[in-house]
Structures are given as structure tokens and as C-alpha cells.
């Protein structure tokens, strides 16, 4: 790390993008630059967090995010253990509070939490001493995803301010959409949300987004097109009549993508439903930066772990 970098990161936890200052977001993105460099070395490891213990506490299935945090912790020499729902005592009726307290009794430093309840990391943070990192809570936020998305956008576009970013799909249930909306608005991008009205409440306009139900119109002049995963179960709850009709209206096809800017990039938080929200060929095209997002995820999570756990003790501001 460059000790000259003035780090402004005052939070004790990373619960969401909404409560971060713009300067804190920029600090994470800058820190990620140095972290990315570590992953390009032959020996991808630095001793920065040696002796720190991180727990991946995942109450929902996840491959990408969990592995990404695991690699991030390991590259910084922290110890990390994985705790997932199937292996947990939750099935035996233990409360979330007791689960966390038991883990804390083993002298841990940080908890990376994925939970199906919105606000679960906030609840945990209200009683635990460890640093809490939100790795996705219900339909609320997924802050590290938004951070790695911003980092990726910056790599390709050199800036965020003034860009037109279109996010397409099931906005209502998407924590990725919310975190990205909060972050991109703070950094001055125009955010257009697109999806069927059943999955795109008008209230999002009060959070700073533009609402567009028609994908063709939304795509015109876009610099970034971010496709969200569609859960097939939503059809059974009548959010849309059929996958066939959804695909007709909201699948990013090669034809449609021509409406965006020539140098527009395609993003997706994964896992992809090929042929439902995005044409398979587009997902693998040169304009798709989906795998770069995954790559950058490790650097962003190293940065977050470093800023929360590394350096001198900061006072809690949460």
C-alpha cells in the first residue's frame, strides 16, 4: 500500500452504499487499484491482514460472491472460514443472534453476511463487535457488487460522471439494482431503470432513477447496459405472463443492443440465464465485460477488507 494515499473511510461496517460518502466510495475504488496489482503477481499474497479472522456467513446459496470474499481474504493473509446454511445450526432452530454470538465467541474480526432478509446485516451490526460486511441482504443492497461494477465501468469508460447506465430486468427484487442506483447517482451518472411495470415501481424515480418500460427507448445512447438475472418463479406470481413474452420485451438481443452507443459495454452480476435476459452470443461478445466484473470483485473485496480491518483502529461511526 502507498502510505501517502489519504484514506477517508470512516465506517466500522459496510452495510450498504446508501450511507457511504462519495469520498468513501472513491477511497474504496482507489484502494482496489493497488489490490488488483497483488492478484497479478506470481505470489498472490501479502501479509497485511495476517492474524485477522474473517467469517463468511452465508444463509443463501452463492458461489461467486463467497469465493470472491474467500480469495480476497486469503490474498491478504487473513484466515477465513465458511459458514453456510446447510451446515449451520440454524436448521436446529438457533436464532441468528445466537449464531452470530457463538461465532463471535471464537474471536473473529469480520463477518461477511449474505441473508435473504433485507436488513439482516444491520440487525447483526446492532449487537456484534465484529465488522459486518453486507454480501447481499434480501432485496435491499449488495454493496460490493455495486463497487466492483463501478470499478469495472471506470476501467472501460475512464469516468462515471455523465454516463448513461441502463439497468434492465426485475428491479423490484434486485439488491444489485438498488446498490448500483445509489452508487452511480452519487458519482454523477444518469441511471435508467427498465423492466415491466410490475417489477419496476414508480417510487424508484424518487431515489433518483429514470423509469423506462420500453427497452428500445431505454437503450438509445446508453454507455453501459446492465442486465439482471430473471428468476423464473416471478412468472408464477404473475409479475409477467410468460417467459416468452418477457423475452420478447426485455431480452438484450444483438439487434436491440445496436441502439446503445457503439462502444457501450454489457454487464451482468451473474449467474446468467442465457437466452432469457441476454442472447448467449452477446454475453460472450467483446463488448461483454461480465468476466472482468468477476475478476474485479476480488480486488474490491480486498479493498473493503483492508479498509475495515487493516491499518490502525478507527473509531466506530456506525
Amino acid at each position, binding site marked *: 500500500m502507498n502510505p501517502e494515499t489519504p484514506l477517508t473511510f470512516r465506517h466500522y461496517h459496510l452495510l450498504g452504499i446508501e450511507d457511504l460518502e462519495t469520498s468513501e466510495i472513491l477511497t474504496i475504488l482507489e484502494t482496489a487499484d493497488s489490490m488488483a496489482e497483488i492478484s497479478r503477481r506470481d505470489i498472490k499474497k501479502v501479509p497485511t491482514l495476517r492474524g485477522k479472522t474473517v467469517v463468511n456467513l452465508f444463509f443463501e446459496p452463492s458461489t461467486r460472491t463467497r469465493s470472491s470474499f474467500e480469495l480476497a481474504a486469503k490474498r491478504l493473509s487473513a484466515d477465513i472460514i465458511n459458514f453456510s446454511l446447510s451446515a449451520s445450526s440454524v436448521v436446529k432452530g438457533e436464532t441468528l443472534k445466537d449464531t452470530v454470538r457463538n461465532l463471535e465467541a471464537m474471536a473473529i474480526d469480520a463477518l461477511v453476511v449474505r441473508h435473504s432478509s433485507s436488513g439482516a446485516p444491520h440487525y447483526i451490526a446492532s449487537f456484534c463487535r465484529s465488522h459486518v460486511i453486507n454480501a447481499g441482504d434480501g432485496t435491499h443492497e449488495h454493496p460490493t457488487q455495486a463497487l466492483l461494477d463501478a470499478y469495472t465501468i471506470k476501467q472501460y469508460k475512464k469516468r462515471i460522471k455523465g454516463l448513461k447506465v441502463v439497468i434492465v430486468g426485475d428491479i423490484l427484487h434486485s439488491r444489485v439494482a438498488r446498490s448500483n442506483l445509489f452508487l452511480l447517482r452519487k458519482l454523477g451518472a444518469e441511471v435508467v431503470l427498465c423492466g415491466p411495470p410490475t417489477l419496476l415501481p414508480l*417510487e424508484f424515480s424518487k*431515489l433518483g432513477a429514470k423509469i423506462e418500460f420500453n427497452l428500445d427507448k431505454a437503450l438509445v445512447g446508453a454507455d453501459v447496459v446492465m442486465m439482471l438475472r430473471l428468476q423464473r418463479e416471478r412468472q408464477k406470481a404473475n409479475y409477467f405472463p410468460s417467459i416468452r413474452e418477457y423475452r420478447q420485451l426485455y431480452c438484450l438481443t444483438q439487434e436491440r443492443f445496436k441502439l446503445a452507443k457503439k462502444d457501450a459495454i454489457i454487464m451482468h452480476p451473474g449467474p446468467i440465464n442465457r437466452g432469457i435476459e441476454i442472447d448467449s452470443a452477446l454475453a460472450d461478445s467483446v463488448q461483454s465485460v461480465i468476466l472482468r466484473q468477476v475478476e474485479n470483485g476480488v480486488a474490491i473485496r480486498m479493498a473493503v477488507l483492508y479498509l475495515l480491518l487493516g491499518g490502525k483502529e478507527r473509531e466506530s461511526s456506525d
Partner: protein
Amino acid sequence: MNLLIKNGRVIDPISRTDETLDILIENGQIKAISPRLEANEAEIIDASRLVVAPGFIDMHVHLREPGQEHKEDLITGSRAAARGGFTSICCMPNTKPPNDNSGITEYLVVEAKKKAVVNIFPIAAITRELAGEELTDMVDLSQAGAVAFSDDGHPITNSLIMRRALEYSLLLNKLIIDHCEDKNLSAGGVMHEGEISCRLGLPGMPAAAEEIMIARDLILAELTRARIHIAHISTRGGIEFVRLAKKKGLAVSAEVTPHHLILTDECLANYDPNFKVNPPLRSADHRQALIDGLKDGTIDVIATDHAPHTPEEKDVEFDQAPFGLIGLETAVSLMLDRFVHKNIISLERLIQLMASNPAQLLGLKNKGRIAVGADADLTLLNLRKEVIIDVNRFASKSRNSPFHGWKLRGAVAMTIVGGKIVYSS
């Protein structure tokens, strides 16, 4: 023991009284009211800095007995009521088993007489098992002591059943108390649907879910000419419909809770389950409509919807926590501090909302007023006293109040039930 309450500021909305008077109580009844009374062998209460009001009545309380006594029971619930200035409370039928037969109603009446320190009046179910399918024996329940009927928490989906219930209630001249919620529309919701739910990523319950049911049931009340009482109204649309129905001359009344009058959905920003309640805390514009309805007479009653849940039940993820908060021990101070002292409503109007009107609506003839011959149920208030709400001092078994730590001006000084002092600060 007889009581002589001296020099209190006696306020009785029914007789339009507001003056300094003495009140003599004998054998559980008010014996005399006069500027200067003397009595031998009576305990003297100096009320010279206090307001003496007819005993407050909370017509919407969950006492959890029988079946969920770990949350509350008749003893602790009645003590909480006494501490909060209520001399009578009505208990909702969603117990386990529900109060849908005269056996349970009689149990509540008998046990309350034995154990409770305030009057407890059971509200019986409208339909068996609160299932919304078959009417209960309403006349039988009424004779056993039910003062009103409600499927609180389990709104009747079938309009025909609701029509029949309203019609049949004409036999009794007793209220149908209506929890208005279209459960299909609110399904899965845990808070008010709006900007805040969108930001917090929590599933919402739209105001429309309440408004649709209020509209339907007011239309049915017009059809049947039956009496209907809208429980815990929380929406602007609901207020508008009730206002219109009153203008038409329907036998409609409405209650509102202190928490819906004071809190909004913005309180949920930290995902604290103590703010999780049904109907949910609404946005500021709905709250303002409730206040307007309180001022212009659209709303008739303040009721708490006291809903006890144990700390363990509430100490979980937000969406896992049960709905409900407790209100018996905070309502009076909240209303005095936030409404009377801020000159939004008068003290006389508050007493009307908390004593006279509920007594009249429930047909409790000797309650809700201060008059010779009336029951000696009195609530004494100290308007200037400052209190800090502390859930750990509550008489209730539960602690799920969102008002912990609030500093309020105005407090209950004494609660008298049937001539007996059941609480004194």
C-alpha cells in the same frame, strides 16, 4: 372505604363540565359532585394540581389469554392498563383458542372479575375460528358478556359473510369492529408500501389494501344499516371514505392508534422490529390525514391496539418478527405531549376520544362520564409532570414499545376503578 377527591379540575365532555369540584365516591359509584364536599370516614385525595377525567377506555387490546400467556395475561394486561390510566379495556378474540363461543367469553368475564384490576370486556369473534366462513352465535356471546364483535387480524374476505354479519348484528345493537385489509393485496408485505419500502428493499403493504376494505364495508353498512366501527384506521383514503359515510348519516365510527398518529414509515430505516405493526406505519401524508380526521371529528376513538410479543419473538430479522406493539402504558402521555400540549386537540376532546366516545359506542351506560350514579371509574392526570418512557418498568409482560426512552410531558397520576385506587404514581 369511601373516597373524597378534592379540588380536582373535573372535565366531563358529556355534561360539558370543566371546573374545580370535589367528588365523593361510595360503594363504587359517584355519590356527589360539588364545589365543596365534606365526608366522614372517607379517604381524602388531594387533586388540586390534577385533572379528574372519566375513566379511560381502550376498546382495542390483545390480552393473549387464553393460549399465549407468555406474552400477556389478564393480570399483567390489566395492571398495564391501570398504569396507563385505563379503567376499562376490551380484549380482542384472536386468542388460542379464539373467543368464538360463550364458554371462552364466560371464562374471560369470570377470570377477569377474579384477577384483573380494571374492567375487562371481551370482544367476541364474528366468525367461528376467525375463519371468515360461518357466523358465531352472536346473541349467545352477547348474553355471555361480549360487548362487540370482531375478526381482528383476520378480515372477512367474503363480502356475503360480511353482509350477513352486519345484518345479524342488528339484533343486538352491538358494534362490528372491522380490521380492514385486503389480504391478497397486502400478502407478503411487512411495512407500508412507498418510497421507504422501495429504498429498504422490504415488501410493502399498499394503503389501497386498507382503503378497499373500508370502502367495501362502508357500502355494506349502507346496504344493511348496521353499525360498523373501523379499527386502527391508518390511511388517507380510509379517512375520506369514513368522512363521506358520516356525511351520509351511516352508523359508522372509527378509531386511530397513538402510533399511527405519531410515527411514520421513516422510523423503519434501521429495521427495528419494534416498529413493525399491522396496519403498518404509513408515510407522512397519511399521518397528516389522520390528524386532520382527529381534529374534525371523523375519528371518534383513540385505541392502542396493544399487541404484546416477547423480547425473543421480536429480537430477530425484521421480516421474521411478528407484527404488533404495546401501547397501554404510553398512550396517555403520548397524546398529552404530542397533541394536547401542542394545541392540536383540546384536553376535553382527548377525554372524549379516550373515555366518553368508547363508552357510548360500546353501550357502557354507567361509564365514560362523571355524574352522580355513574360508576366510580376515574383517570387522574398530571399535565405538567415529565416522564421518560422505560419499557423495563412496564407492568406488561412484554417490552415491544417503539417509544422507549421518549421524554414526554403529561402523565397518569392515579387510576380509580369502581371506587378503588388501582394505580397511583
